[in-house]
């Protein structure tokens, strides 16, 4: 049974990671088309891909959007989670449902709605527009992480800070934020990853300011080129680093409870 379990687990991981691994392997393969047997090892596709200025521009766009999205959505997510933790009020269930709603919407619908809305505001096609759309998508994740952390906090901790002479802001700064620090860093990583990866909504609203996933599609539409594998590998490594960092922080924080 145990051996069977391992086979099953390996099969699942193989199924998930085989395409990514293939992309990774072919990014170093000298052949023009992804066929077996492999040709020789080369970093040529990386060289070519990263010598294109539009690739660098897209990476810069993606990094800016991911960074700003991470900061803004983590701030909003933390504030939402803290409101839930601290206050009881009417329609709180509705408030929470609304706050967690965006990821349940089909991305195409979200993309279309964002396009229509951002055009009305005249910021469609700008980085600001992409950031706004990504903040909407990423905030619920940040909120969920912060909420989980706050639920592990002894409610007496905040009152204890007041009791020892902290004002409300003092308790926030000296108790709530330090307690939530692992969750906040984790939320920053995860929301950055959500934004860095996100394609559909970005495709609708990005216009000429393409992010990396949008640019990949555009290259792909032209022709199948192993440069895509190279760029894809870089994107994958970046996102995985962020997600693993987030996971690590969520896991590690358990120890100090």
């Amino acid at each position: 049974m145990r051996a069977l379990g391992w086979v099953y687990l390996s099969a699942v991981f193989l199924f998930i990671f085989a395409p990514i691994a293939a992309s990774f392997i072919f990014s170093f393969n000298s052949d023009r088309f992804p066929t077996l047997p492999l040709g020789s090892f080369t970093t040529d596709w990386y060289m070519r891909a990263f010598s294109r200025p539009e690739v660098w521009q897209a990476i810069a766009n993606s990094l800016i959007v991911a960074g700003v999205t991470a900061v803004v959505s983590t701030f909003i997510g933390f504030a939402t989670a803290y409101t839930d933790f601290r206050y009881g009020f009417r329609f709180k269930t509705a408030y929470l449902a609304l706050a967690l709603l965006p990821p349940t919407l089909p991305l195409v619908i979200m993309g279309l709605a964002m396009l229509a809305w951002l055009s009305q505001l005249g910021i469609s096609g700008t980085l600001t527009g992409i950031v706004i759309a990504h903040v909407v998508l990423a905030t619920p994740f940040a909120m969920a992480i912060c909420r989980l952390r706050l639920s592990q906090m002894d409610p007496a901790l905040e009152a204890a800070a007041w009791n020892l002479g902290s004002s409300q802001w003092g308790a926030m700064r000296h108790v709530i934020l330090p307690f939530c620090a692992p969750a906040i860093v984790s939320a920053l990583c995860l929301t950055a990853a959500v934004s860095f990866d996100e394609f559909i909504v970005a495709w609708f609203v990005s216009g000429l300011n393409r992010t990396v996933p949008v640019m990949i599609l555009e290259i792909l539409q032209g022709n199948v080129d192993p440069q895509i594998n190279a760029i894809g590998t870089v994107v994958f490594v970046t996102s995985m680093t962020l997600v693993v960092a987030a996971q690590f922080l969520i896991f590690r924080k358990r120890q100090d409870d």
Partner: protein
Amino acid sequence: MTDPLVQFRAVHKSFGSYVAVKSLDLDIQRGEFLALMGPSGCGKTTTLRMLAGLEAPTSGTISIGGRVMNNVPPHQRDTPMVWQSLALFPFLSVVENVEFGLRMRGIAAAERRERAMMWLGRMDLQGFETRRIDQLSGGQRQRVALARSLVTEPEMLLLDEPLSALDAHLVIRMQGVLTRLQKDLGITFVYVTHSQSEAFAMADRVVIMGHGAIEQIGRPQEIFRGPKTRFVAEFVGRNNILAGPVKAGVMTTAQGPVPVLSGDGPMEIVVAADRVTLSRDRPAGAAIRAAFLSEEFAGTGIICYFETPDGAEWKAQVTETQLAELHPESGQDFWLSWDPARVHVMG
């Protein structure tokens, strides 16, 4: 007597339609160890939280040191509390926890470290200052919590069931630590508990609360031997209660006529379990008949439970030798007698 440190005057607190505390009048003296005791939901914790400013009274006034404190936020009071959960900060080291109150008061780093170290020494925690909270035992955490609350040298310390999470043997030791500390410092301790052994062992005065109101205030002995109300008699100690009209030295009760020494008209008397004598044959004097139910070992003796014909529960405390001689069986009838001079008349 000097001015009391704390005065509650007609204090009322409700949460929505739920009344937690009603028309509370209470003076707390400087330097006394006061225990607020009662079953859960009696309002004792709400009373303590109002004193700390964590809840505002719905009406009435609370003054500390002669100043009305109703609307003073918690951080502007000097009423540190030891929490039931201890509420130590898990992301700070032991010494940083102790320093917290001084840091919030803007005291310079060097001085606050020195004062925190002094308190850690006093609490027998030297050498633990850089530890994390989760590296300490229950008793050590307790002492960190005490040091953290006392480092600002307050006039009054609030304690909210601080020993409820400890093992029995640690509870006894911490009781000793707390009483000695309170006498040494000479400050006021307000101690909330549902445990009468804790309250009676430590407090100078005990306040018994029930359903949001004070039932009785007194020294432990007074309350233990002289409960004023049925609520207190039932909550405190192992008491048996008899009620009925008294005429010509005889009280007519549901358990039959019982001689009493004095009184006239409706009366309630308390017969403490340790003052009840068991016998198989009817003795002379005050006695009732009841069927044996079960026994319970209670450390100092054995508590035997009985049921009277009308369904009331009676308790009698006996020694192990007495129990062996009687070897009662379930359902067996006994006579429970007592000296009428050693009953307590309520009211």
